[in-house]
């Protein structure tokens, strides 16, 4: 029989001890990634139980939105459809990944309160669950991505390794955002509403639909200081055969390091208390 040992001590041994246990939580949750994946897959399956198209319903509604907005913005901005449609399609798909993960991140711990209050499961498992669930959704939406890449001949110019590196960096970044919103929303229940507003506002401030024009004045500030622009740019530009902004990858790497340090620091300090927030 498998013997697992638990050693739990008092929390008053200081920051070092808390940090060691936060790292232990990280290690155990990474080893148990299979469980996070099982939970995530179960979420996807149960959300669309009884529907014929299943998760492809979102893919379908996304495709409809891509077509509508693609045609509209091609007309509005006076840009040929062949440029606009792939731009909008990739924008909407990957924006969906970023914003859904952060919004659903708020529920990561709250939803798992039953499990957290009676088992010693690592807490980060539930953060991975949210990220993996959205990754599973992305796998469905890849239909749109592949259709656009083939339909508009992007496969001739795309830089797949760079796009995958961009995706990896984006996942690392949205993971810490997910952890951060999960902790804060467990403590303060107003946060999910605020996060949702921020994401909605950011969608309009980020070139998801609209093509960024010349980088002058306000436009330059909006693009330079918008983390979501860099996230989107790191995946979309290589897929469209364009070079990402020179600052995009350094910004994402810096953001990942600082963001994880902050989020993990908060996790270290609050970890013992999170179960009582719920």
């Amino acid at each position, binding site marked *: *029989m*498998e*013997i*697992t*040992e*638990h*050693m*739990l*001590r*008092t*929390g*008053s041994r200081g920051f070092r001890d808390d940090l060691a246990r936060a790292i232990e939580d990280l290690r155990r949750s990474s080893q148990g990634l*299979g*469980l996070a994946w*099982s*939970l995530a897959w*179960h979420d996807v*399956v*149960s959300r669309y*139980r009884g529907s014929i198209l299943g998760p492809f319903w979102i893919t379908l509604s996304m495709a409809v939105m891509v077509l509508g907005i693609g045609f509209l913005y091609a007309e509005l901005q006076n840009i040929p459809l062949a440029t606009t449609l792939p731009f909008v399609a990739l924008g909407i798909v990957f924006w969906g990944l970023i914003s859904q993960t952060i919004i659903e991140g708020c529920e990561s711990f709250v939803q798992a309160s*039953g*499990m*957290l*209050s*009676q*088992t*010693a*499961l690592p807490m980060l498992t539930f953060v991975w669950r949210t990220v993996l669930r959205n990754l599973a959704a992305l796998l469905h939406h890849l239909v749109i991505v592949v259709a656009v890449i083939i339909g508009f001949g992007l496969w001739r110019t795309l830089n797949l390794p760079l796009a995958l590196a961009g995706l990896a960096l984006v996942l690392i970044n949205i993971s810490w955002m997910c952890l951060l919103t999960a902790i804060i929303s467990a*403590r303060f*229940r107003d946060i999910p509403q605020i996060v949702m507003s921020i994401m909605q506002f950011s969608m309009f401030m980020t070139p998801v639909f609209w093509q960024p024009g010349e980088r002058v004045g306000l436009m330059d500030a909006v693009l330079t200081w918008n983390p979501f622009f860099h996230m989107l740019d790191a995946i979309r530009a290589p897929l469209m055969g364009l070079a990402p902004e020179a600052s995009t990858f350094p910004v994402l790497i810096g953001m990942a390091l600082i963001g994880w340090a902050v989020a993990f620091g908060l996790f270290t300090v609050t970890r*013992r*208390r999170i*179960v*009582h*927030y719920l």
Partner: protein
Amino acid sequence: MSRGAKPPTAPPRPDQAFISVRGLTLRFPVYGYDAKSLKKHLARVAVGGQLDQARHGSTTVTAITGLDLELRAGDRLGLIGHNGSGKTTLLRALSGAYEPDEGQIEVRGKIAPLLDLSLGIDPTATGLENIRLRGRIAGLSARQVDEKMDEIAAFTGLGPFLAMPLKTYSSGMQARLAFAVATAVDADVLLRDEWIAVGDADFQKIAHQRLLGLVERAGILVLASHDLDLIRLYCNKVMRMDTGVGSEMVSVKALDELLARPSVR
């Protein structure tokens, strides 16, 4: 270790289950309520833990104060005490969900917390999916769940209904399923809150046998209950809790004397 019958008080082998709790104190911060009004409200209530007003204006409930406990393989401890005396909190602390504010908890062995039968149960999923999900949460690998699937399915006695969503089940059927999965995990330390009566008379009988078997297999049982007959049936030791303070552990034979005391202190 196979030669002859072991005396019941044999020293624990290093690979055997044990629980050691020293000076455990657990405090809950209570968030999101007006501390003053809560305090006013609770002042009139006789049950529950001790309430303190914390420095930051939020209310802190001290659920367990300075509790000591030593359990070895073969110990079956019954926890008694009125509502809010800290029994469930102690079980949750032993499961690893709550970490101590002071003192130390050491648990060796695979822990099976059976605190809530509905843990990880999804009413829209089918019976089989729920078995899978619950098994994964309990720490079984996907393969182990597959191996145990037939046994669990047979034990529920639900047959073809296992392919139906759980929401179509009667509450007795749901309890059968939850109970079957919850008890399918081989564990060294079994934590059980209230022996919930499940299912019809037939199932009660099978469930009872299964629990007895589980108690024998598990190194240690900790059972919190108000039902003294149940405590006498399953436990060999007993501890009384009162406003978060634990009495010393006594043999279950001394249960009546323990209850007759005005307070545990």
